[in-house]
C-alpha cells in the first residue's frame, strides 16, 4: 500500500524524469571530449597496422628478395608477386601488388618477411577515386616506403623489443 502510494507520488511529481533532465543539464556544461580529427589526432600504437609500404636499404637497394613468403602466408590472398632474375644475378620482383579491398590488415606479411621489406605503416586516412586505386602496385608501395622512412624506422624500432 505504502509502496503503491509512493510510486504514485513519484510518477505524478515526475521525479524520475527530473533526475534524467538533471543529468543531461549537467552534461551540457561539462567539458567536451570530441577530438577534432584532421587538426587533432588520437595517439597511435607503434604496432598499428595501416597502409603497406616496401622498404629499401640505406644504400637505396630494395629489400624485397621475391621469396614470396608474404604471398603464401596472406590469408586473404591479397598479394600477387611475379619475379625475375636481375642483370646482377639477384632475384627481384617485377610485380608486387596488394589489393587493399582484399587485405584484412592482419600483418602476417610483415611477420613473414625474412628481410623486413613489406611493413605496415601508421597511415590509415587514405582514399582512392577509382577501383584500380585499391591496388597498391610495387611503385606506390616503394613510394610510401621512401616518403615515410623516418616514421617506419622509428616505430619498428620501438616495437622491436616486444617481438
Amino acid at each position, binding site marked *: 500500500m505504502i509502496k503503491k502510494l509512493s510510486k504514485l507520488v513519484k510518477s505524478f511529481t515526475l521525479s524520475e524524469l527530473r533526475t534524467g533532465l538533471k543529468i543531461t*543539464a549537467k552534461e551540457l556544461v561539462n567539458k567536451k571530449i570530441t577530438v577534432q580529427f584532421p587538426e587533432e589526432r588520437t595517439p597511435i600504437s607503434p604496432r598499428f597496422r595501416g597502409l603497406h609500404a616496401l622498404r629499401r636499404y640505406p644504400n637505396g637497394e630494395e629489400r624485397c628478395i621475391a621469396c614470396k613468403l608474404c604471398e603464401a602466408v596472406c590469408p586473404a590472398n591479397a598479394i600477387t608477386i611475379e619475379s625475375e632474375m636481375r642483370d646482377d644475378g639477384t632475384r627481384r620482383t617485377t610485380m608486387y601488388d596488394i589489393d587493399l579491398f582484399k587485405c584484412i590488415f592482419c600483418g602476417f606479411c610483415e611477420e613473414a618477411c625474412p628481410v623486413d621489406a613489406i611493413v605496415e605503416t601508421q597511415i590509415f586516412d587514405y582514399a582512392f577515386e577509382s577501383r584500380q586505386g585499391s591496388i597498391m602496385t610495387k611503385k606506390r608501395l616503394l613510394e610510401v616506403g621512401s616518403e615515410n622512412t623516418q616514421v617506419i624506422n622509428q616505430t619498428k624500432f620501438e616495437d622491436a623489443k616486444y617481438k
Partner: protein
Amino acid sequence: MELWQAFVQMVHTLIPWLDGTVANILIILIKAIVLVMPLMLVVAYFTYAERKVIGYMQLRIGPNRVGPKGWLQPIADALKLMTKEIIFPTKANIYLFLLAPVLAITPAIAVWAVIPFDEGIYVTNLDISLLYVLAIGSIGVYGIILAGWASNSKYPLLGALRSASLLVSYEIVIGFALVTVVMIAGSVNLNTIVQAQQGGIAHWYFIPLFPMMIIFFISALVETNRAPFDVVEGESEIVGGTHIEYSGMTFAVFFLAEYANMILMATLAVVMFFGGWHSPFEGIPYLQAVFAWVPGIIWLLAKTSFFMFLYLWVRATFPRFRYDQIMHLSWKVFLPITIIWIFVVALMTQFQLAPWF
C-alpha cells in the same frame, strides 16, 4: 506600437491613390511577410540550436565546420535540400503527394496570424483566436495523413495511422487543458488572455494551472511529433514514417512545418500560462523601473526560447515511448487529470481565489 502606427501612416501618405481596402490588404500582406520571414529564419537556426544543444548534452560539439562556429550550417542545409532532386515513387499519386507538404505548412504558418507578440502587435485580432489556433492547428494532421497515404508505401502508411490516432487523442487533452485557461481568463481571445495575466509573476496562470501547464507541454510534444513521442517517424521501427518517400524541397517543407509548429506550441505555452508579453518584474518596486524599457516582445521571445530549449532538453534525455503507452498516457492519465482540474478551477473561480480571478 507607435512605430507601427507611424508605418501605417507612411503607407497611407506615400500611396495616397490607394483607397482604404487595398491599402489595408497591402498592410496585412506586409505584416504577414514581416512575420513569416523571421519565423523561417528562427526555424533554420532552431535546427542549428537543436544539433548544438543535443551534441553538448552528449559530450559532443555539434556542427562547427561551416562558417565560424558552424553558424552557416542551416544555410548550407537549406541550399542542399533546395538543389536535391525530388523523387516521386512510381505508384504514388503525384497530386496528393505534392499537396501533402502544402497542407502541412499552410496551417503551421496560418496559425501565427492571431498570436499576440506585444500589446497591439499581431497580424489580426480575432475574438475567437484560441479556437482558431486549435482548429487550424489540427488541419496540419491532414498533411501527415495525406503524405502517408499518397506515398503508396507501407511504412509511411503506418506512420500516418499512428499520427492520426495520436493527434486525435492529444487534441482532446490539449483542448481540455486550455479550457481551464479560458475559464480563468473568461475569454477565448488570446489578447484578452494575456492582458488578464498582467501584474507580475503571481498573476500568471501557471500557478493555479500548474498540472495543466505540464500536461499542455507534454501534449505539445506529441502534437508536434517530437521525441520522446516521435513514433510517427520512429526510425528504429518504421524507418522514417511519413517522410520516407519525400526528398529535397518536399521534405524540407515538412521539416519547416514541424519546426514552425514546435515554436508555435512554445509560444502558445507562454501566452497561455506565462503572461505572454508581460515582464516578470512587474509589480516589484525597484526592478520594474529598471526593466521598464524592455519591449514586451523581448520578454515573449525570451520565455519562448526557454520552452524551445525545453524541447531539445527533453529530446536529448528521454528514450522513445512505446506506442500503446502513449495512448495509455493520453486516455487514462491526462484526460482524467484535466477533467478533475476543470472542476477544481470551477471551484476556484466560484470562490474568487485571488489574484487570478
